[in-house]
């Protein structure tokens, strides 16, 4: 374990408190359950089982080689990615490479207003002068940005389908494979899904229901056309276009993504969800998500994804911006399962994401919960800027790195308002040759009287060739602040495994059980069905992690 602190580290008080978050959980759960009373009808809770096809076919487990020389480590390598299929929809792509023309092409393709084109071009100009960050504890061959395709859309998307019947059957088939019964979705699910296939949103459902309460949930392209004033006001307001190399790139070429606006006082009647999938070869995906919760509103947003198997590394540089105004609350849950590369570390997604939320108003709250099992490389720090007084930021994370996966992930909590509170619970699991780092910043600004932070980051190692590192940065500039940091590193011991096996539980099930126990505090933060899926996902990810 490594630790590094910045020079200005002066935590006023550091105590080792036992975790007493149960009460908080209860409150959140309670909040989530309560009906809004605005719509007069309550949408049924949703089954998220379509998120991961393997969740449905739980009984069909990968055939595995039996015990190898090192039962714990080696055979992570045997686990193959089960969802690596490619749909041969004829994609209409821009030629590889990035220049001003491409940026104009993307903007034109989407009939964007002038302000957005200018915004993109400005970002592009800045990007040209920027370099990719080198400080993360990950290594990968240099990316040739001129090799990448910056726009691709299924052909049939030129004329936007007005209903599911008009959707390309091939696309529907893809969703079918992914376990999303699009056709039955309306009946099945209370979730409005803004599905992203390659770069264009295919279908958005339940819009009418949402419209009744004034919620806007659509693709960002549509939002640009239909609600330019909102987009203009908030786009880039949390994550400036030139925040970093990848955000500049994203701002220049973002293809699509989701847009959510919850009006004043509205409790969004359903959990909103988006579904990402990378398809066409060599196509970077540059999602842009913007969620705005106006005063006193509430929304819970879910994001989940799988990707087809690829030999070439695929770049993914998304930007997610959240804005919570006074008394508003945004809960953003992610389960990420992108192709992590094969057992030799070949291929896999490069996931360089900037996610940031701003608690603009007093008493606002933003909560990030993420379960990350995929990607070859993850570079991701969902953050909260706590501007409003009494605002709350939360970060609950489970990250798994197996095979040759690398992850440098964590969060930033920036306390600006008075009595702001933040909680960070990070659980890292490393197996095989996996390497992962927690990198977290807690900054308490001068005016943040009474700010509080609690950080707990735990690492679990499976085998002896993986690594876990912790890089906490704590910067406190207000003496009334209270900042706590706890960290632990542990191993799944042979004794534990033997004990479980002696009770009849297979080694794989035992690992999964122990790992799930380790992640419990985070899973509790996920919406119920999502949590069940996340547990299964974790089991599948670590499947083959033992003999």
């Amino acid at each position: 374990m490594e630790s590094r602190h910045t020079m200005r580290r002066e935590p006023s008080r550091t105590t080792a408190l036992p975790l007493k978050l149960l009460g908080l959980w209860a409150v959140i759960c309670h909040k989530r359950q309560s009906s809004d009373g605005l719509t007069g009808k309550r949408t049924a809770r949703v089954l998220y089982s379509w998120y991961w096809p393997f969740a449905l076919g739980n009984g069909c487990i990968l055939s595995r080689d039996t015990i190898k020389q090192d039962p714990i480590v080696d055979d992570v390598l045997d686990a193959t990615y089960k969802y690596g299929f490619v749909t041969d929809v004829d994609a209409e792509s821009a030629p590889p490479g990035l220049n001003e023309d491409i940026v104009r092409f993307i903007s034109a393709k989407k009939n964007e207003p002038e302000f957005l084109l200018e915004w993109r071009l400005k970002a592009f100009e800045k990007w040209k002068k920027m370099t990719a960050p080198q400080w993360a504890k990950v290594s990968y061959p240099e990316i040739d940005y001129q090799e990448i395709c910056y726009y691709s859309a299924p052909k049939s998307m030129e004329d936007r389908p007005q209903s599911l019947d008009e959707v390309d059957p091939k696309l529907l088939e893809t969703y079918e494979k992914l376990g999303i019964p699009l056709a039955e979705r309306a009946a099945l699910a209370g979730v409005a899904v803004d599905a992203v296939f390659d770069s264009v949103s295919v279908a958005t459902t339940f819009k009418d229901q949402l419209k009744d309460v004034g919620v806007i949930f659509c693709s960002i392209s549509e939002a640009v056309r239909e609600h330019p004033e909102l987009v203009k006001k908030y786009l880039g307001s949390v994550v400036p276009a030139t925040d970093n190399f990848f955000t500049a790139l994203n701002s220049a070429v973002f293809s699509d993504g989701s847009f959510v606006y919850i009006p004043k006082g509205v409790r969004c009647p359903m959990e909103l969800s988006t579904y990402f999938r990378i398809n066409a070869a060599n196509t970077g995906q540059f999602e842009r998500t913007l969620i705005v919760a106006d005063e006193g509103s509430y929304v819970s947003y879910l994001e989940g994804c799988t990707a087809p198997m690829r030999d070439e590394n695929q770049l993914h540089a998304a930007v997610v911006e959240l804005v919570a105004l006074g008394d508003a609350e945004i809960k953003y849950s992610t389960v990420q399962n992108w192709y992590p590369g094969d057992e030799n570390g070949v291929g896999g997604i490069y996931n360089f994401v900037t996610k940031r939320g701003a608690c603009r108003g007093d008493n606002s709250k933003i909560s990030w919960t993420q379960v990350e099992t995929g990607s070859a490389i993850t570079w991701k720090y969902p953050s909260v800027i706590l501007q409003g007084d009494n605002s709350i930021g939360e970060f609950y994370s489970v990250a798994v790195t197996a095979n040759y996966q690398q992850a440098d992930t964590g969060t930033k909590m920036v306390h600006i308002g008075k009595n702001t509170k933040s909680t960070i619970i990070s659980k890292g699991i490393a197996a095989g040759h996996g390497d992962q780092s927690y990198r977290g910043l807690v900054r308490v600004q001068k005016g943040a009287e009474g700010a509080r932070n609690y950080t707990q980051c735990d690492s679990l190692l499976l085998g002896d060739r993986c690594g876990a590192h912790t890089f906490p940065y704590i910067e406190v500039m207000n003496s009334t602040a209270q900042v706590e940091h706890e960290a632990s590193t542990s191993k799944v011991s042979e004794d534990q495994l033997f004990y479980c096996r002696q009770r009849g539980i297979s080694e794989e099930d035992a690992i999964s059980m122990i790992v799930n126990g380790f992640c419990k505090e985070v899973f509790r933060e996920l919406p119920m069905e999502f949590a069940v899926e996340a547990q299964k996902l974790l089991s599948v990810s670590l499947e083959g992690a033992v003999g």
Partner: protein
Amino acid sequence: MLEISNLHAQIDDTQILKGLDLSIKPGEIHAIMGPNGSGKSTLAKVLAGDEAYEVTDGSVTYEGKDLLDMAPEERACEGLFLAFQYPVEIPGVNNTYFLKAALNAIRAHHDEEELDAYEFLALVKEKMALLEMDKSFKSRPVNVGFSGGEKKRNEILQLTVLNPKMAVLDETDSGLDVDALRTVAKGVNSLRDENHSFLVITHYQRLLDYIVPDFVHIMVDGKIARTGDKSLALEVEDKGYTTTQPSAAP
């Protein structure tokens, strides 16, 4: 039920078991006593399939099958249970959940349906009452923060719920007060019938007052040095192990 023949086993190149023979028939209770380092716990671990130990010679047949050829979980599913001398802590995993996973794994192995939550809880409740266990055991993580006595009691709870045909108790009595000892024995005796066999490893004759064995074996230096009935345990208690060694025997 269990036939151990000429068993040799080592750990890290140190030979521990040196030609052990033992035969246990259905319904029998065998006790093994012996001085520290004689290989009692090693025998228990080898029977359960701990991969840290290497079997270098001999055979173990369990219900006609080669036990040494089976994975630990397979042995467990076939009804071999080891009550650990040092039960392992598993943070974050609920005790009841763990037990249910174990029971259902064993049931699945025999193509039996999983017990539903209701049936399972009823079963656990019954066994916990038998063992006079506090209901907080149900929700605590497996063995985490348990006292030594609680851990042993938890082992016996697992024993009674999983209902194995062949149970090996590795110094289950150590660290128990008389009351706890009596309770643990009650749990073991509740299973006792013509189909259940036990191998009880202990240092003290005291346990055998409550779990009365059919045979008592004295283990010295990796093999059985002497075999007798319950009176042998009393003799050992009285005179110590030295007199029971073959060379010193009359």
